[in-house]
Structure formats: structure tokens, C-alpha cells
């Protein structure tokens, strides 16, 4: 019973990822796409968590944490790029 529910949830997350992908491909503006990528990252985190439950392992908890950090970092990088055109600022006194 619980397995079936987990699989159903997983499939739904998959559907969510595909739908989000629509926004990335079509998305009229760049921020749309970046937010969609961020959302895919979050969806993946959840999906990995559900897979971990299904497989009954703790091995993927690191992946969840890392993905959480990295999805954040890449979103920040994109945002900064949109705002300033560069990701890493040069030092003023250089």
C-alpha cells in the first residue's frame, strides 16, 4: 500500500518536472527559466527523498543536501548574472 503511494508520488513529481520543463523551453523571459530550473532542483530533492524511502537506504541523504545547496548556488549565479552581467566581481583595488 505505502509502496504504491510512494510510486504514485514519484510519478507525479516526474510529471511536475516535465511540466516545469515546458516553462524552461518556452518561457518568454530569462527569469522564468531560472525559476523553473530552481523548481526542477527542488522537485529532484523530493524525488530523491522518496527514492531513498523506497530503497530503504540512507546513502542518498548527502545527495539531497548537496542538491539543496547547489540548486541555490546556481540560481544565485544566474540571478547575479542577469543583474550585473558578471558572476564574480573583481576587487576594486586590483
Amino acid at each position, binding site marked *: 500500500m505505502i509502496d504504491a503511494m510512494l*510510486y504514485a508520488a*514519484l*510519478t507525479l*513529481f*516526474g*510529471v511536475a*518536472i*516535465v511540466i516545469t*520543463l515546458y516553462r*524552461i*523551453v518556452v518561457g518568454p523571459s*530569462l527569469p522564468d*527559466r*531560472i525559476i523553473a*530550473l530552481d523548481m*526542477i*532542483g527542488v522537485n*529532484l530533492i523530493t*524525488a*530523491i527523498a522518496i*527514492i531513498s524511502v523506497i*530503497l530503504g*537506504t540512507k*546513502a*542518498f541523504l*548527502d*545527495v539531497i543536501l*548537496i*542538491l539543496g545547496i*547547489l540548486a541555490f*548556488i*546556481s540560481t544565485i*549565479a*544566474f540571478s547575479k*548574472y542577469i543583474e550585473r*552581467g*558578471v*558572476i*564574480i566581481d573583481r576587487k576594486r583595488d586590483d
Partner: protein
Amino acid sequence: MITVNLAIIIPFLAAILVPFLHKTIKRIHIGWFVFIISSALFIFLIRYIPNIANGDTYLYTIRWIPSYNINFTTYLDGLSLIFALLITGIGALVTIYSINYLSSDENLSHFYSYLLLFMGAMLGVVFSDNIMILYVFWELTSISSFLLIAFWYHRKRSREGAQKSLLITVSGGFAMLVGFIMLFVMTETMSVREIIATVPNFNEHPLFIPALILILLGAFTKSVQFPFHIWLPTAMEAPTPVSAYLHSATMVKAGIYLVARFTPVFGGELTWFWLVTGIGLLTMFWGSFNAIRQTDLKALLAYSTISQLGMIMSMFGMSSAALQNGYSLDSVVYTQAAFAALFHLMNHSTFKGALFMVVGIVDHELGTRDIRRLGGLATLMPITFTIAIIGSFSMAGLPPFNGFLSKEMFFTAALNISNLQFSSETWMNLIPIVAWVASIFTFVYCMIFVFKTFLGNYQEEKLEHPAYEAPFGMLISPAILGALVILIFFFPNVLGEYVLTPAMYSIFPYMNGELGLHINQWHGFNTELMLTIGVIILGTLLYISLRHWKKIYRLLPEKWSFNTLYGNVLEKTESISNAVTNSYMTGYLRDYMVYIYLFFIIAVGGTLFRTQSFLFNIEGNSEITGFELLITLAMMIAAVAILLAKSRLTAIILNSVIGYGIAILFVIFRAPDLALTQTIIETVTTVLFLAAYYFLPEWKKEESKKRSKGVNAIISVAVGVIFTTIALAVQNGKLFESISYFYENSYELAGGNNIVNAILGDFRAFDTMLEVVVLLIAGLGVYTFIKLKARKGDKPLEDK
């Protein structure tokens, strides 16, 4: 006892010594050292004559590469002795001559080093019993001849002549090498003697005729036979001693030697008879015909050498008729052609060497060798004139000079062969006729040589220096050779019995009966004598009326010559290969990718197709859940969308979607370490893309042709299909047991529960170390790219 091997090695050692001696001993001319070497070798070889005449032969071996059957084996018999005596004897005379000919401002140490190198190589050619060693020395003669022709390397024509001779002789040499290898394949031995001994066992072999033709190709290119004769006239840019030595007496006879040496192997074959005789006669005719039109004395002598070598070659071809019917007493009569050939070989070396030296003297004293500017030198240079008369009358075949004897024997051989009954009679009758006509032309150019140079009007205003007799030193060698010409006429049988007859036994080792021939100066009123008288009468008439019929040379335009053909071939090969290279080396990376992928498609796809190995077996594959399907679908959509993306940023975002998709696939397939690494690397890559993005130019729509886009699409689809097919077909057969069980006990062996890490850090740590090095190199590379910039005015770091 390795004395004969030593005779080959000594010139090479001396060639090394020459530059040192030249630097340390300034007072004595370095040529004397070379003279001592060559005359010592000559005397050393003369000592063998009595033993060789008794039928002894000498075989010495030094091991070189025994595992490949290649040993430095020398074989001294009658045939090689003749050539060795010519090489060392004329070598010594040429050295004396060149001591006086070359001024001391020239680079003498180079000259004598090359000359000794050539002498050693030539001795190696004639003494070698091992065909591979023979080939090595053969190429060494080509190379040293190349160096000697281009001795005045600052002249363009010298360089051209050297290049031409090298190209032609070396390509012939390569053909010969292939022929030798075929011989080795057939007989499984590299020794010439053993090959001769086993001939009857393999003359039905399919490689026999190809080997014959290829070896003949080597001999013909070296011995300036038609149509490879073109390099000899251009090689006349060499200093005259070189022309006298290499291009009349020795190197051009290497091909003759090869034919003589291999007559017992191939002589029984009709192809051999027709090729050698036919090409020889054609060369003889063509050379003598063309010699008449030359205005340069050396060019005239070059064509006459071509003609005389053709004559010698054709006589060796005629003598092979003796082997057609096996070794019977009746066929001994045909072997006499070989005797005549050997005799004329000696005679030609004497008179042609003298004539070249005469031309050298004329050139040296007057500063020109153009016939049109010369004349009336007979009273001013009496000794030179005498030698010239002896040489050219001998060449024309007049008594009392040795050329008369060999020409008579040549006619005898040609007449004998016309009685032979293995082919249609008309062809056989053609042989003496062509020989006779060529002899008439020979007579004409010999007369031109003497009379246009030494008689007529003395035109001092056209000369650079007024004419005087040459210094004594320059006259020694031609005088000795001229004396030999006469001596051989009066005592031909000394030479015949002691030197030529033993050589006959090396050419026809299994012949029964007496092979030697007694040479008579006078043999009654027979056909040969009538032919000679006819040559003299017709030749004189032609010489007198030369002005009237010289026009026929204009009938054949200059651009139809073989020289033009050679030039065109060189030019065309260059331009065609240039065009071919330019057509595919476009400089565009995308074109090269197309080649690589096309090759991949043809090679891998072709293999798949040929072996019919695309059978798919999906038994035992796990089930696909809905989530996996969706993730794969998302990745596919993203991948296709990248191709259609309108901006770079969209492409970057879609790329990271694919990366994250791979990460989740790793999770699904239970690879936590991979998933971790993949997420991190994906993020870092995305950030790097963004960092690089700032520096990229505006996104431009790629303007390429529709067709190339279509081609790209087809290629990419094909590559994808092939990869997918391979991946699916791989599951089809399991060739080996999995080795993953090996890592199951990782805790006991490596002390780690994480198998992946245990493999990376313990079982297969070597790979990991190198991967770390790769990262290090990449990091350093990026650092240098960013930091190292050429300052202003510096040279650019790399060529664009």
C-alpha cells in the same frame, strides 16, 4: 680471413679520415691520400687474377643480422673482379686527374670524401653475395653520386641534375628491392650463389616474372637504359672527374653488373631475353642518334655513354639465348655475346674515361666546351688531340684500337642471334640491322667529337682563355688510358684469358664446354668486316653531309622529349597533390569533424552491418517505472530543445537540466557517489559556462548552406543510431564473467565499506592518481591561459 670485406670497408674508413687529414696536413694535396688508397686496393685485387683465372673463388662472411639471414658476405669471382679492377684502377687514375683539375679553392675534403664513399659503395655492390647487402651498397652509390653531382651546389643546374638522378635511380632501386624480396620469398635464401643453384625449382613460380621485371627496372634506371636515360645528360653538371669516373666507367655499369650477375637466374626466360636485348638496342640507337645533335661536348659524351651501355646491355641479352635450350654444346655460340659484352665493358671504360678527361682538359684550359666555339686545337694541344683521336676512333670501332675488336664481336653476336629459331624471323633479322644503323650514328658523333673540336678554324675571340697544352699532371691519366686502348688491341688475349674467361664461368656457371673466346685482330673477309667497312663509308658520307640532314632533329619538337615528360610529371604530381590536399584540408574544424564521424559511421556501422550483430536481447532487463520514463522524457525534451534554442543562456539552462537528470538517474540506479559528483560538477560547469558567456560575442545565427545542414543532420542521426545499436547489441552476448565479485570482500582487503571508494582509492588507485594529474594539468593550463599574455612587441606565443 676477411680481406675482401676489408677492401670494401677501407674506402669508408678513409672517407672519414679525409676531412681530418685535410685540416691537419696543409702542405700535401689531400688527393694523394685517396690515390694511395685506391691504387693500393687495385694492386691488392690484381694479386687475385692468377688464382681467379685458375677457377678459384673466394667467399668471406661477417655476421651482421644473422637472425634475418642478412650477413655481410662477399664473393670474389671473375665477374666481380672485372668490375672491382675497373673501380679501383680508374678510381686511381681519376684521382690523379682531379688533383690537377680541381683548384685548391674548392672544398676538396668534401670531394674526396664523397669519392671514397662512392668507391667503397661500388666495391660493395660488386662483391656482395647477399642481396640485401647488395641493395644497401646500391643505394649508397646513388646517394654518393647525388652528392658528387651537386658538388657545386650553388649552381641551380647542378642541384637539378642531382635531384633528377637521385629520383630516377632511387625509384629503380626501390623496384629492385621489391624484386629481391620476391626472390627471397621464392628461394628462401638471400645468397646470390644459392639462388642461382636453386633456379630450376622456382622458375614456374608466379612471382618469378614480376621479380625479373622489378630487378631489371633497377638495372635499367642505374644503367641509363631507355627511357630512364634522361638523368645522365643532366648529371653532366658534375665536375669532369666525377663524370669520367661515375658516369662512364663505374656507376652506370652497376646495372650491367646486375644483369650479368642475374643472367644465370633469369636468363632462361624469354621475357628477359626480349627486355634486355630490345631495350638495350633501343637505348643504343636512341643514344647514338641523339648524341649527334648535342653541342656540348659533355652532353655528347653522355649520350654516347647511354648508347654504349645499351650496346653492352643488348649483348648480355643476346647471350641469355644460350640458356633457352638448356646447357648444351650448341648454345655455347651464344655465350660469346656475353664475352663480347665483358670485353666491350672494359674497352668502354678505358676510352670513355680518356675522352671525358680530354673534355675536362679542353674545358679547363679554354673555359668552354661548346662545340660551336671550339676548333683548330690540334696544333695547340697536340697530346690532348692524340688522346682524343685514340679514344674516339676506338669508340667508333676503327682499327687499331680496342673498340674495333669489341664492335666486330658485337656484330658477330648480333648475326648469330638472327639465326636463332624461337621467334618470328623478321624480328630476329631486325637485331643486326638496328645494331648496324646505331653503329653508323656512333661513327658520326665520334667524328664530330674529334674534328669539330680539334680541326677547323681556331676562334680565339670566342674563348675565355687562349689555348695551351694542359699541364703534365692532367695528361697522365688520359695518356695511360689511351695507351691501354692500343695495348688491348694488340694483346687482347691476355685480358681475355686471365680476366674475361673466369667472368664467363660466373655468368654461365653450369655451361658445358669452353666458354672463352680467342680474339683475333684479323679474321678474314667475313660479314662482320663488311659491316664495319659499311659503317665507315656510310658514316663518312653522313658526317660530310651533316649540315643537310641535321634538320630532321627539328622534326621532333623539344616538348616531346622525355625530359619534358619528366618535368611535367614532377610538376603535375606536385600540383595535383597540392590540389588534393587543399580540397580536404579546409581549415574548418567542422569539416574535420565530418570526416571523423563519417569514418566512424563507415567503419563501425559497416562492421555492425557486415557481422549482422544487431540482435537485441532484452531478457533480464529490469522494468521501467513511470518516474524513470518521465525523467528520460524530460531529458530528451531538453536535449532537443538545446538544438533549437535561440539564446545561449537558454541552452545553458537546458544543459543543466540534462545534467540534473543524469544525477537523478544515478540515484535511481543506486550510485550515490556518482550522483553526488554529478550534481557538483554540473553546477560548477554551469557557473563556468556563465563566466565564459560574458566574453563571448553576440549570438549569431549560423549562416551555412542548407545542404551542409542536411548533411550534418544525417551524420548526427547516423552516429546516434549506431551508438544506440551498439549499446543494445552489447547486451546480446556476455563474453566473460563479471569481475565485480572481486570487490565484494572490500572490507577485508581494503578496510572500506564503500566499494566505489575502495576501488578508486585502493584497488585501482593508479587510475585515480592519473586523473588527479589530469585535473592538475587542466588547472595549470587554465591559469597559464589567463595569466600569460604576450606583452606588446613580444613575439606571438603561437602561430595563428
